[in-house]
């Protein structure tokens, strides 16, 4: 019995060592950047692994980034693109998901398949034609171009997840509303949309991250100074300032922070979303 207990202790210890070790490996690089962004140049080079102290504390990197680059502008662009795309994906996605899961009509299966195709095939492969199309619509170097592409990219997954969720809504609810003579649009906006809120939140977090982080489409469709997103801005800013370590570290930190903050708020939602199938 004692031996059994000892071996259980040993295995729990082993588990903790591996998990804690890997957690350290996952967090260390991010922490290193955050810590050093608050240090002076001398502090960064003399002892990269030390926390900032009264000698080495400095915000010079942040000053440089915020004054000499259009960081706030890029930030605003990213925010506009991400939020607009998100709202449209959720609204249009929920509407289409409702049509596909609720009504039986000719071609509904083919239409569902058509949308499902987009889950596996990356939209990036159509870039040559997307650029051509945007040029002919005179949308190059506008945020609209980015929004349109991201909405097209995000819809398939949103439709799939939301229709799965809508099928679980009890029939009686909809039938009762119809018996009362409520119109189809009213049913959707006032009965169904509020009911699927948890699923919408999950889809939102999943859709938001790739849009915020995308480099490819901003690089190709909107590289102009007025329309750069944060990801593209950081990429080019760092390229220009490789020798100014304070500025590089500060801009990395500024790019990481919003995601960190979002994760603090949404991590439970996100993790629950991924493990949804299991915890149901």
């Amino acid at each position, binding site marked *: 019995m004692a031996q059994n207990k000892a071996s259980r202790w040993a295995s*729990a210890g082993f*588990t*903790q060592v*591996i*998990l*804690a070790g*890997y*957690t350290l*490996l*996952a*967090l260390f690089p*991010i922490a*290193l*950047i955050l810590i050093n962004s608050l240090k002076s140049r001398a502090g960064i*080079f003399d002892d*990269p*692994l030390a926390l900032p102290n009264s000698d080495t504390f400095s915000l010079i990197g942040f000053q440089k980034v915020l004054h000499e680059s259009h960081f706030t502008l890029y930030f605003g662009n990213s925010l506009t693109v991400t939020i607009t795309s998100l709202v449209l994906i959720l*609204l*249009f*996605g929920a*509407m*289409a998901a409702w*049509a596909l899961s609720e*009504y039986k009509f000719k071609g509904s299966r083919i239409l569902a398949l058509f*949308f499902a195709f*987009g889950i*596996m*095939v*990356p*939209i*990036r*492969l*159509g*870039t*040559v*034609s*997307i650029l051509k*199309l945007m040029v002919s619509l005179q949308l190059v170097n506008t945020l609209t171009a980015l929004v*349109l*592409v991201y*909405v*097209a990219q995000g*819809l398939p997954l949103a439709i799939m997840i939301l229709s799965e969720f809508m099928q679980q809504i009890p029939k009686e609810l909809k039938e009762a509303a119809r018996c009362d003579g409520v119109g*189809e649009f009213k049913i959707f906006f006032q009965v169904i949309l509020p009911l699927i809120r948890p699923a919408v939140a999950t889809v939102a977090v999943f859709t938001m991250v790739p849009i915020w*982080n995308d*480099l490819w489409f901003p690089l190709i469709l909107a590289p102009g100074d007025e329309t750069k997103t944060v*990801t593209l801005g950081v990429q080019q800013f760092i390229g220009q300032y490789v020798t100014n370590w304070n500025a*590089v570290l500060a801009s990395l930190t500024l*790019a*990481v922070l919003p*995601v*960190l903050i979002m*994760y603090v708020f949404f991590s439970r939602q*996100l*993790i629950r979303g*991924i493990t*949804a*199938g*299991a*915890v149901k």
Partner: protein
Amino acid sequence: MKRKFPWHIAVFLAPAFLIYAVFSAYPLVDTLRLSFFTTADSGAQTWAGLLNYRSLLLDPSWSEGFWGAMRNNCKFFLVHMCIQNPLGLLLAALLSMRGVKFAKAYQTAIFLPTLLSVVIIGFIWQLILSPLWGVSEKMMGWVHLQDFFAPWLGQEETALYTLSLMSVWQFVGIPMMLIYAALIAIPDDIIEAAYVEGASSWRIFWTIRVPLILPTLGLTTILTFVGNFNAFDLIYSVKGALAGPNFSTDILGTYFYRAFFGYQSQIGSPTMGAAVATLMFLVILLGVGVYFYFIQRKLQRFSF
């Protein structure tokens, strides 16, 4: 009675259908079409049949780059398959054991890097591995390994593997989460029964839990495959469009970018870019096809 046209269905579907059709489905089809054309110096496009593909696959001025990128992309994928997914399985297995302290905190922390932009991850690791800053060398010094330090990102032989490992570091959270979800979905009584029969934890893991989560392992494989053969951002932000040193980190995504936009003295060509994109499309389709027709079907038969 005459049926009324179901306007509401059309209204619900129209916005999603239009945007998806115009900005996703049509460009994909049009890209396939463009790949059969060639661009003249004047910019005019004329029908060329399979000429672009012949150049890409056989003409050394194109094919060397293409096959190099393909080889590198396969290595990139293999590193993910051999390290990322087994590591994800190990972490998920440990997390799903009963009564592990801080499990939720570990999960949250390990998943964090997947949310950051690949651009940021690339630069962070570039700084850490930089000989100029010396963080890695210093830390290796703690365990007396400083003599083994090398500028891994700058050497032809190691650059691709270093980048692959950076990507593994970032994305290991995804297989970990998916496998974890599958593991905790296994009904407790199956495991209990095996314990009562006297099976060891190790044996239960390999003979009961792993076979039961095979569909999830298949899913992580195909997700890794599609993600890897579509990758671009990491290489571009760390190594630029030329994927140096000497193209040793070139993968299909960066090759596509160069074929489309050109580089140095070579002029880019939309039709050549379209041909590269179409070949990438075929590779991904092949992967997805193999997954659906062989692996998933077999797994379903297995589970019934």
